[in-house]
């Protein structure tokens, strides 16, 4: 079910529209897709009470990834396809992908993944993205700072290096609330034996243990300033680490990976920047009247029709940010959510497919 169907699919694609083709061929192979990455869940492993690892086998549309990158995961919740971004936790050379995902409070997607996604389920992925990857120079000493599930991109890096039998000078500092909540705990204990040159230090923040501090860092890694540093974790940790590097004038030595729930819209947002991916332009708008009116005032000419929220000619997808529906006051901030330009106003900086 591999070589010939692909050739057939190539011919069929020109004759039949992809959605129809997928509908019929998914009867034979549920993972079949013309362009989209569909993946079957092979296993679900509990890491901690709040964190699970999903082992996925993607279809042939998956183009691989570099350790440290992330990918979007799309699941259907209440009939709506919702998309979130997660770091890939497995090694680059593994035949399956690993996503290590914490259940967020009130998180619809992480809640659905934890409650409903079982082995055999099919999820949709985006291609891997991001430049939070190891330096090209294999001799550069590394310092990895991880908070909570911010450990996942580093696990991917370390698993990749260990599987390739690499030697690497790496210091890994992990923060977790308490030992039971440290993900991949046993593996972290065993990794130094598989990866010569790796030192692992863990700190637990809820048991009177120190949070990040410059003194603590110097004690564990006196040569911290000479290392390529990476930080990934909750905002508070990332900000504290970034401030330390900035104060030392070493801003460029530190790579940061931010993650978290989408920013809620602030009332009276004030001027916001709207990046339009189709026209390649970024404009600043007041965020008071409808996006359609304000984009036009900024010199753009988005497609539109009735200007009254009826005809949907101005519908476009929201790639990032939050908007408010003018009539109902509802905030919308889902990735790829269709919005009607004439019926919403900007609430944060936006990225729009216009």
């Amino acid at each position, binding site marked *: 079910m591999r070589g010939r169907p692909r050739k057939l699919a190539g011919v069929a694609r020109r004759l039949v529209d992809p959605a129809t083709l997928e509908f019929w061929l998914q009867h034979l192979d549920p993972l079949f897709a013309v362009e989209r990455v569909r993946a079957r869940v092979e296993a679900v492993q509990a890491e901690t009470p709040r964190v699970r690892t999903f082992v996925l086998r993607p279809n042939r549309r998956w183009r691989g990834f570099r350790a440290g990158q992330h990918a979007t995961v799309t699941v259907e919740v209440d*009939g709506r396809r919702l998309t979130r971004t997660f770091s890939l936790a497995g090694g680059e050379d593994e035949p399956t992908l690993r996503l290590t995902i914490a259940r967020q409070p009130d998180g619809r997607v992480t809640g659905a993944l934890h409650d409903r996604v079982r082995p055999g389920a099919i999820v949709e992925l985006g291609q891997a993205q991001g430049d939070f990857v190891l330096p090209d120079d294999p001799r550069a000493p590394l310092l990895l700072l991880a908070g909570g599930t911010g450990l996942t991109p580093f696990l991917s890096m370390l698993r990749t290096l260990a599987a390739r039998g690499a030697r690497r000078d790496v210091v890994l500092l992990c923060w977790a609330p308490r030992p039971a909540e440290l993900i991949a705990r046993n593996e972290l204990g065993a990794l130094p034996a598989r990866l010569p040159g790796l030192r692992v230090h863990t700190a637990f923040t809820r048991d009177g243990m120190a949070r990040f501090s410059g003194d603590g860092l110097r004690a564990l890694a006196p040569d911290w300033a000479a290392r390529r540093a990476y930080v990934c974790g909750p905002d508070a940790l990332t900000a504290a680490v970034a401030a330390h590097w900035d104060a030392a004038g070493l801003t460029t030595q530190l790579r940061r990976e931010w993650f978290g729930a989408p920013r809620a819209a602030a009332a009276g947002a004030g001027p916001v920047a709207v990046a339009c991916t189709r026209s390649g332009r970024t404009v600043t708008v007041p965020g008071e009247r409808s996006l359609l009116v304000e984009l036009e005032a900024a010199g753009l000419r988005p497609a539109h*029709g*009735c200007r009254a929220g*009826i*005809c949907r*000619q101005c519908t476009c997808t929201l790639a990032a940010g939050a908007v408010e529906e003018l009539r109902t006051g509802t905030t919308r901030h889902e990735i790829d959510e269709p919005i009607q330009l004439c019926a919403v106003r900007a609430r944060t900086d936006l990225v729009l497919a216009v």
Partner: protein
Amino acid sequence: MSSRSRALSPQELQAFGRELDALRDEVLADVGEADAAYVRRVRAFMRYSGAAGRGLLFFGLLPPAWLAGTGLLALSKIVDNMELGHNVMHGQYDWMQDPTLHSQTFEWDNVCPADGWRRTHNLTHHTYTNVLGKDRDIGYGLLRVFPEQPWSPANLPQLLYAGGLALVFQWGVAIHDADLGPDGERRPADVARGLAPVAKKAARKLAKDYVVFPLLAGPAAPAVFLGNLTANLVRNVWAFAVIFCGHFTADVEVFPESVLEDESRGHWYVRQLRGSSNLEGGSLFHLLTGNLSHQIEHHLFPDVPARRYAEMAPRVRAICDRYGQHYNTGSFAAQLWSVVKRIATHSLPSFGGSPAPVEA
């Protein structure tokens, strides 16, 4: 022309609009998994019935197989155009964020390109519903269906035009959407430009129904050809009948362009209500009409999933009753008969009054 609805004060119009807005928001808040599952079921049914119909037509030299195959294919095309295509293109399922069910990219089994349809139907018709001179769907530029429209001798045989239009309805819609009606000054270059997307789409559809599938059938080619032709005709006549009942029954009203100046939401709702009429029937009938049997609810709430109209209808009707607004509904036969009468009546010259005011 007299209205069966009473004129409303500005305050009443505002309250009327608010009540309908509240109903809309309440239903939209409840839209979710069941609606997503439903539209996917409808799509799967369209595909399975289409495949079964085309499959049976390969044995179309046997009359029972030809009848069943043609029937299933007609059913599939009707569901594709009406409950699926028309409703998806209105954005009723955009909230699902499913690119295959998205209003701006959906394509249907019809010679009318979806882009043209989105423009003329969603924009022109749904925004300017029954506004003379703005809504090009009033009589489709072919028929005189209101006394306010000017009469000419060409209108005399218009019952025949209507019958002809029913048979080729998808072509009528396609050409209508390309905006090539008899009105206005058009150079041949403009006509060609307008027709280019139609020609491209039509070529694909014609090739599929009248070349590829007949050839695949070998000796049964004539049966397949005839079955596909019949299925397209059945879909055309059905769509024509349902759609004409939506806006051209006895009591629907037209409006002058002046109503569009600073039109309030309440007024917009009243205009949609008075320009539309419903058909009564069972749930299968509603499905086959793409829920255009709930034309009133559809025009009030074009982007609410159409399967919800049935539950909204009694509440809409109760609101209309309280505000003294006529809720135009009847059986399919009665409404269709009133359409035929309307087309016949206005084929003769008349001395129309002026439209009834909405606002007191």
